[in-house]
């Protein structure tokens, strides 16, 4: 018997934290312009000591103004999507749940595009208008998950297969709406938007928005974490969870809103990066077990690692051309999804 203690939790997070740090260093080094690890270490120390002005300006531009923000964005997006995926899996009692597969990412993308189109016509200050995109994405995500939830019910209970079908159909319907909206846009915008839809980390949001997104991320993740023990019981069944003292209504509401917020945030800054919320929680379960009190923080770190690796591959495999990071995660995630589906059917 090895019950969870704070020490064990920290040890597991620390292991992944170190991995994330190493992955970040390698990601800073790799790219179209080569940077030596030694030079990178020296420069990082200089920046840490507040002597960033001593760096060669070209270096500083590439490593600290282009690569680092992009990596930080990847960390944020990966953590958001993985925590959202793990939350949806417990909320819907479906191990195949993922924001992308369920159509929630498409809903968020549609909401974000609506907001992008509508914002200039509302005559508000640009700083306020910038908030419309994440807000629209959140509303799109929340509406989609509610629709999928109700479409996925049969005779009052969630049916796993029906739920997945409802998600996949919603995703294709929403994609059609997105296509429709995009044809109304000037053609110069369309290519950028198409790239964004596939998942793209190359354009980090403005600094003021970064702070806002970061704070909201921690609030939403923290809110989900307060229900971690309840989610463990929810996995055994709704009735059983109630019998063990879970306030089902409160847990559902908290997780539903917070997971929609996380999906909305991630999609509003990076488009629809698929399968991260499916792959990462499953990998973490194999490593550290299924206890949500461990799973949620470690899956956040794991998601960050996965997206930074995927984005580094996207930048470097066919450099100087860039792949979309969503294409990389889909190439890994889609076969894994099929594997999980087959294993459940047998």
């Amino acid at each position: 018997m090895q019950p969870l203690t704070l020490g064990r939790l920290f040890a597991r997070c620390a292991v992944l934290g170190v991995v994330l740090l190493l992955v970040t260093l390698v990601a800073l080094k790799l790219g179209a312009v080569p940077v030596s690890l030694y030079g990178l270490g020296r420069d990082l120390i200089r920046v840490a000591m507040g002597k960033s002005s001593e760096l060669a300006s070209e270096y500083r531009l590439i490593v600290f103004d282009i690569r680092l923000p992009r990596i930080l964005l990847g960390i944020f997006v990966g953590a958001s999507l993985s925590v959202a995926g793990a939350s949806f899996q417990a909320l819907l009692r479906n191990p195949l749940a993922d924001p992308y597969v369920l159509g929630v990412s498409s809903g968020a993308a549609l909401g974000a595009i609506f907001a992008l189109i509508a914002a200039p016509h509302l005559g508000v200050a640009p700083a306020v208008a910038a908030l419309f995109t994440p807000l629209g994405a959140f509303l799109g995500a929340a509406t989609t998950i509610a629709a999928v939830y109700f479409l996925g019910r049969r005779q009052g209970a969630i049916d796993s297969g029906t739920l997945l079908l409802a998600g996949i159909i919603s995703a294709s319907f929403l994609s059609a709406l997105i296509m429709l909206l995009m044809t109304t846009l000037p053609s110069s915008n369309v290519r950028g938007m198409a790239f964004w839809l596939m998942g793209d980390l190359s354009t980090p949001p403005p600094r003021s928005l970064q702070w806002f997104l970061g704070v909201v991320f921690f609030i939403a993740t923290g809110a989900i974490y307060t229900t971690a023990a309840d989610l463990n019981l929810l996995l055994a069944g709704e009735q059983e969870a109630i019998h063990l003292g879970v306030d089902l209504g409160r847990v559902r509401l908290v997780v539903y809103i917070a997971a929609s917020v996380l999906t909305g945030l991630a999609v509003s800054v990076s488009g629809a990066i698929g399968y991260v919320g499916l792959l990462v929680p499953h990998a973490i379960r194999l490593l550290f077990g299924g206890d949500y009190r461990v799973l949620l923080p470690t899956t956040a770190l794991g998601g960050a690692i996965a997206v930074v690796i995927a984005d580094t591959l996207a930048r470097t495999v066919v450099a100087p051309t860039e792949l979309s990071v969503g294409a990389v995660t889909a190439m890994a995630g889609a076969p894994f999804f099929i594997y999980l589906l087959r294993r459940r059917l047998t």
Partner: protein
Amino acid sequence: MSATAARFPATDVRLSVEQVSYAYAANPSQAPLFTLEATSFQARPGEIVAILGPNASGKSTLLKLISGALAPLSGRVLLNGFPTHSLDPRGRARRIAVVQQESRLLFPARVWEFVLQGRHPYSRGLAFESEEDVLIAKNALAQVGAVALNDRWLDQISGGEKQRVILARALAQQPLLLLLDEPTLHLDIGAQVDLLEALQRLARQNRYTVVVVTHELNLAGGYSDQVVLLHRGKSLRVGPPASVYQRELLEQVFQTALTVEMGGSGRPRVSILSDS
């Protein structure tokens, strides 16, 4: 009179089901699809009550009313004097443990993790399980004779072993009232007897009040102190097995020819007579 005797006098009623009724309807304006007519019984600590009846007789509905999951249409269910339906979820889970027909997990878990879940209604905020919780979980496993299963995966043990582990989780809740819904449904005959003997021993030792829903005539007759016989939403008879088990009554309820013999211990034995 000692303090213990004063706290638990022999006539102390723990569970009191008073004229409870219920009606299911597809929607409020329609005639109910199923009704449970007024049902009453009382149970003391250490007593096992069997709710007996064929399918669709209202057994599970009565169990849900007792557990407080459903609000009665009329009447009330009192546990130590408090209506079970008005308890908050955590308070209810500290007093009432429910063992359901099936416990399906989405992701594999170890036996000890599963039993520790029984401590959830006592958890405080984000704090992890205390050493006391772990001790209680270990004791619960010991009480059902399943210590050896501690580190096994829940999906890799037999049906009988799993039923014991589910019972252990219920014991870890340290309840006053233990409710079991068809606990023997997927068990072979040996495991059924094992489980009911364990229940009987636990009820006596820990002073639980136990309510078991079953359609197994002989298990109800052999192990319970009281039987509530239900038929099509009506409680036909309440009392000790010897008084409820009458041939004509059981034949009418279960729609089959049968015989009832009284054993030496005052326990009735039922045999089904086949036509062929």
